[in-house]
């Protein structure tokens, strides 16, 4: 299936900062071209919206954000999000990996951001994957079974884990949403390295 709008969310284990602090941080990422291969456009501040997209970094390829509930499972939790919006190529596994790669890159930048100095940390053992291609898939059992193998392959390949579980988040109104729990997931820095090495290879 030709999924384009694949969203990945990495949950924050720690987020001891105010959302508005991210505004100058994201502007600096644009100045420094901190996300290689990404055409960053602007920063959108939605901090005023409860359980919303938080602060977003709008790029041509898709939307990055520190999200506080717009992308959610059964409940709103903060985390870094990458939502793909433009044409993605390759197999579904490649597209999932690509979205994950972008989310991981932003998470890594934030964890290493001097302005946030140890006030943010992301889990790599739990993440949300959402497919907002409503023509191709509803949020139902059949669609979940159709993507399950690709999600598992992508996560095994990137994390190196040997064991993970996928739980569909059953809201018939949203895009197909899956929560992944990954045993033995590497720390974020290692995950970044693994994904980068795989891309080079």
């Amino acid at each position: 299936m030709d999924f384009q709008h694949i969203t990945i969310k990495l949950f924050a284990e720690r987020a001891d900062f105010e959302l508005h602090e991210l505004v100058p941080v994201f502007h600096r990422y644009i100045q420094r071209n901190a996300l290689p291969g990404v055409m960053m456009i602007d920063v959108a501040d939605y901090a005023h919206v409860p359980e919303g997209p938080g602060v977003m970094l709008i790029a041509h390829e898709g939307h990055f954000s520190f999200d506080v509930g717009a992308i959610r499972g059964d409940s709103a939790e903060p985390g870094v999000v990458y939502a793909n919006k433009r044409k993605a190529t390759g197999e579904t596994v490649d597209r999932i990996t690509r979205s994950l790669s972008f989310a991981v890159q932003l998470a890594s930048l934030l964890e290493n951001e001097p302005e946030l100095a140890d006030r943010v940390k992301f889990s790599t053992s739990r993440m949300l994957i959402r497919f907002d291609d409503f023509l191709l898939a509803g949020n139902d059992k059949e669609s979940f079974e159709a993507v399950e193998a690709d999600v598992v392959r992508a996560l095994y390949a990137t994390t190196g884990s040997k064991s993970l579980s996928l739980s569909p988040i059953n809201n018939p109104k949203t895009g197909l949403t899956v929560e992944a729990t990954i045993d033995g997931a590497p720390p974020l820095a290692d995950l970044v390295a693994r994904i980068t090495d795989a891309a080079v290879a």
Partner: protein
Amino acid sequence: MSDSWKQRLIDEMPADLAREVDVFEQQMQLRRDSKLDEKIFAETRLRRGIYGQRYDNGQRHDGVAERVLPFPSDGLTKGPETVWDAPGMMRIKIPFGGLTPDQLDLLAEVADEYSDSILHITTRQDVQLHYVHIEDTPDLMRRLASVGITTREACGNSVRNVTCCPIAGVCREETFDVTPYSKALAYFLLGHPDCQDFGRKVKVAFSGCAGNGCGLTTMHDLGYIARVKEVDGEKINGFETYVGGGLGPVPHMAKLLYEFMPADEMMPVALAVCRVFARLGEKQNRNRARLKFLVAKLGIDEFKKLVEEERKILPHDDAWISWLTDVDQYKETPAKDGVPLNGTAKPDGYDAWAATNAYQQSQENYVTVTLALPLGDITTHQARELADITRRYCGDNLRTTVEQNLVMRWVSEADLVDLYKELEAIGLAEPGAGTIVDITSCPGTDTCKLGIASSRGLAAELRTRLAAKNASLDDAVKNLHIKVSGCFNSCGQHHVADLGFYGNSRNIGGFTVPHFQVVLGGKWEDNGGSYGLAIGAVPSKRIPDTVELITDWYVAERQGAESFQDFIKRVGKKTARAKLEPMMAVPSHDEDRSFYVDWSDAREFTIGDMGIGECAGEVVSQIDFDLSNAEREVFEAQLALDDTHYDQAESKAYNAMLIAARGLVKKQWQDVPEDADTVVKEFRARYYDTELFFDKYAKGKFAHYLFARHDQGDANGTAPSVDSARVLIEEAQLFIEAAHACDTRMAALPVS
């Protein structure tokens, strides 16, 4: 499973809306192939609600330097200085603000897939989606069409969304429910041929009463206030009718056209106004092209005379009455019977919420509940949950408001506590609707190319501060309105606010510093009863303190129950300015850099990111549109030829010539009918016999292509073939080229 939305929704889209989207998709292809002029395409997409956003010229100042945004568009544009791949905005008209739960669910879907998971309610009851790519717009429009929504004429030089009091039909003070009238006029004018040749947009509003006047009719091009008149013992519904209002940089109060206009004259008079505007309105100088300038120039008496003359010659249209056939039967159906509030225990926060957000309807035991949305924004999750809540509590009865909120109508009183709890659980139970904390703001520099200062950033800051001290605010202050615009164009409607602000800038020590002009004493009530006074420009970062200064001053020095408007009028502009002077100081850049950075931003402030606004649309003449449509028809003929549908190819090629010919005839006779016999006859008389269509070398040769095909009719027994279809297509293309040349020659002629 279908492989396209077009296929999937084929049975769910009204045929006319489906066709519109197909046409637009073809126009996109013609633009990609450089076969459609960028200016025409820009106006075409604007008239489908597809708007540009900041930085779509491919440049952005990142706080250090101006940078090129390397969109992969390869030079392709979607309008003058507007890069094809730059994200844009989709404006979605919601006529009279009427929104159903099904529509809300669909809006949430498309916002997740194509946008940033936020639905934004505008100051004209529209819904906007931001950061939408133009390639996604046809499918987006198809999905909207499947729930009965069209984005047609949401932008551009057209009749924009027709707005209406959000409590029309449930208001305790209304004369009658204006909802069905606003709906009828909205759909009657949509795509109407007489509304396609404006130099600027036309805005229409309805109000059920003159007093509260939530419809703000005084600031609209066409405004209607419900009135009833007794004629021969019978009560007739009608409207106090206004024309020529508008905000913009210089606001104009609308002028009274009729003290009472019977409802059945609503359509023809609106058309007459539109035709006068199309004919006499300014089209070269965009800054003077609104209807308000024409009314001001002519004076209301002369304008009225012209309207009445136009009304007399209007060809009759049964639609004037047929659209109004069911107005008396219009009614909304509550989901539940109205039952009084019983002794249910009220949770914390309920009383404060109910005091401001629950409006007792004229119908016993029913309440209209306002959802005060922060800066008009609602997440897709909230929207989905709200759709289900609405179904349970009030059926289909949701409306958007010009204060960028939503209202749920027909809530049974007995359900209020439970409803409050459900709304609170999804973050939609903020109290303070319509009060000082409920601040209206245009998008400003967040996304608008014309934005000078961050209206949303300021509004968010004011909202936070005022909400924090709300409990301690004097009652006289709590009900003041604050409205913020990012520039002088007043999309935030700052002129009708008690405290209005519009963005500008000042040069301080070689730096550009964001400021807001302070506009005091505007009146929301009485349909936007009066406009505020511009007092002076204050640096953006001092505005929250300025609000505190002004409100404290008002509380301390008002006389008795003096309104804020009366207070400002009494103290006068000079005194008000003197009061604000201390706030106008800007510390040096070394002393306090924060003044040189706007709200919700981190970059050193610049006005370099402003671009060419699209609110003024592109002035494209009616003949340009007609010839563009003719070209599109020929394009479709070619597609049919490729598909070996030769009869369809010939039919479309012939139709293309008729469209072009009729376009030329319309320049002389606006109401020329569409039938082929009349079009050809009139074209022959006006353009061939007069030799207007002749060019220097080919003379009238190309006109004969049309005549020959018309004379042939369906009487020819020969079946269409690939050759006959190809020949006719080529002839049609030559005819259209000749029509273009004819138009160009005519434009160069001296005006008699």
